[in-house]
């Protein structure tokens, strides 16, 4: 079965969500978005995405809270998570590392192209599997 690369975008900023969605969709990637941790939780309980782009500062349930919950559910342990944030403290990076996050990116540090490239790796991998 063909399985497309599904990206779950979790960010409370509407504009950014639309930017991600638009740019990422071009590469043949399925994009789903959620406005906060709670909404994201609802999605993953039904379906596990291939990769999650996770913001930290969100209302209702922030990125770390979601992450903790995610790792506790079926199939949640191995999902790749890329954290995107405005915070840059080492303590946050360490915290993220605890939950198996390998990519912790500060928004103002990275280019939008870098994010697209990361997602396309996933997309290429999935294509190979096909």
């Amino acid at each position, binding site marked *: 079965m063909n399985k497309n690369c599904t990206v779950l975008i979790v960010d409370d900023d509407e504009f*950014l969500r639309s930017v991600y969605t638009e740019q990422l969709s071009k590469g043949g990637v399925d994009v789903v978005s959620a406005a906060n941790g709670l909404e994201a939780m609802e999605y993953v309980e039904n379906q596990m995405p291939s990769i999650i782009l996770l913001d930290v*500062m969100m209302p209702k349930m922030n990125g770390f809270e979601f992450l903790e919950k995610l790792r506790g559910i079926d199939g949640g342990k191995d999902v790749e998570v890329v954290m995107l944030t*405005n915070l840059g403290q080492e303590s946050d*990076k360490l915290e993220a590392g605890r939950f198996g996050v390998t990519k912790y990116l500060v*928004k103002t540090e990275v280019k939008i192209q870098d994010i697209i490239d990361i997602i396309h790796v996933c997309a290429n991998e999935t294509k190979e599997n096909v």
Partner: protein
Amino acid sequence: MQRLTTSTSKTKTSTSGKKFGWWRDLSITVKLAIGFVFISLFSVGATAYFAFDIAQESLTDAASRNVMDINSVMQGYVLEFLESEKGRAVDFASDGFIRDATNQIILGEDMSQELQRHLVDNKMSLDRTISGINIFDRDINIVASSDLVELTKGYDISDHLYVLDTLNNEYGEASVSDVIVQTHFDIGQELIVVSAPLTHRDTGELLGVLALYVELDELNAVLNGGRQTDLGGTWDDDSSEYSSEMYLVNSEGLMISESRYVAQVILSQEVDTPAATACDENYSAEFRYSNVFGIPVIGASSCLPRGWVLVVEVEEDAALEGLARLKRNVAISSFVVLIIALLLTILPARGILVPLRDLSSAVKKMDGHDFTARAHPSGSDEIGVLGGLFNNMAERLNVIDTMKTEFISLASHQLRKPLAVLKWSGELLSDEKVGKLSDEQHKYIARMNESTVEMVELVDGFLNISRIDSRLVKSNPERVELVTLVQKILHKYEDVIENKEFDVETLREEKIYVFADPLLVRELCTILISNAMKYTQQKGSIIIDVKSDSTGKLFSVTDTGVGIPAGEQDKIFSKFHRGSNVDRGRNDGIGLGLYAFKQLADVMDLNVGFNSTEGEGSRFWIHFD
């Protein structure tokens, strides 16, 4: 010059440049101790001084009075003794038999035997102090004696000059001679001669002189108590207790009594001490001097007939022994007072110093930027109040500091949100992901993107400084590969490099590893690369070199930029410093970059440095062990 280290800055201790700065720098305990010691020593010293003065005076007075009293008494005894002997002489000279017999002998009759027996049996027996009796005629020839041998000795007139004076005496008037050394009566020691004129019983005509010979010992027995004991009295010999001495000195200044210090001084020891010579002027007095044996004494003297002097001396040390004891007691008590004073300083000092040190340590912690430091005031004395006020102040500072940190942090994060949007939107536009752009549009978008990057850097800078100043930066070293890191940083500045047409070279291909905190290393390298880009003009050249040798690894960035003016090179790591040769109109920095650079390097314990020439360029380097 501003101190750059992140460790607690050394406060400049008040170098009181004046003369007594050394006093002010002493600890309080030492000051108190010195104060107490001085006060107690001074009090004891002053008291002791007066006590000594009075004690010495009264002891000396007492001793002087003592010797004078003894001297008067002894003078009486001596005079009485001499009077007694003179009385004897007169008494014997008035004896009828002696007078008749003498007269007859002078007229040619040989009465010597009878007279001798009379003298011995009836006269000398009366007084055992008399060792012998001689009877002289007017020509000073011995005509009769208690010892017939005297008559045969063939004396000369010069042997008996001591009786010359007596020839001129009135009837009943006796004279005492000085001490004589000629042997008479086979007495092997010094004698004094007491003589009285002999006169005819009826006519009163002078016949000659009757002389009594008394051993000097008899005279000295008066001084040493022997005579008193012989007469049946008691003699309290306290001389051993009091170290005193009594002796007679004749008119020639020679001792005629024995001394307890030296043997055989009679008629050989000259005495010229003040006491002895005072009698030349015919008064008795008391003195302090060293006697002929070199011992310091208090002496009194009185005059006797024949120019003799009676001297009584008491050793000064013995007399003033009480003073020595006083001195010893004072020394002991001052020592005790000293110890007590020192102990007494410790108690109140502790009461002051312990809370003071507690407060001091809290202040010190706060000096090291620990606003949670608090004092522990006990009691409400001045220091307690100070401690409480300090804690209030500390709390306010803590609140302010926390607020400041939180504010900067919050503000920076809040600023970052829109900046992220700006940045990405700009990138999407310039990457033509939302439509093609004209060249002119590209130009504007490029400029906007540059500004966005500037703003991001500024905000990053603020956040950094806030964290550095709050001592929140910690270094957690790991293995970091430098070449990859450089590539990542350069990737960030791709647009800038392209726009400014820089010629960027990285001089290392293979991997170079260092052991350092990855985020902080990235920070350091970014600052250097960013600065190179900022301060190098269009089409300039930037060389990033990573190399490894025996001393360690070196990361350096060399540019052909504006350089740093020579006079400002010692200030470039200061906060808010910007080179004077940098165009003021530029808005891409507020002078925090190199400040953060140096602070971080210190936290990481790394050696950093630079060379720069104004107008030619700069080279900054970081050395890893």
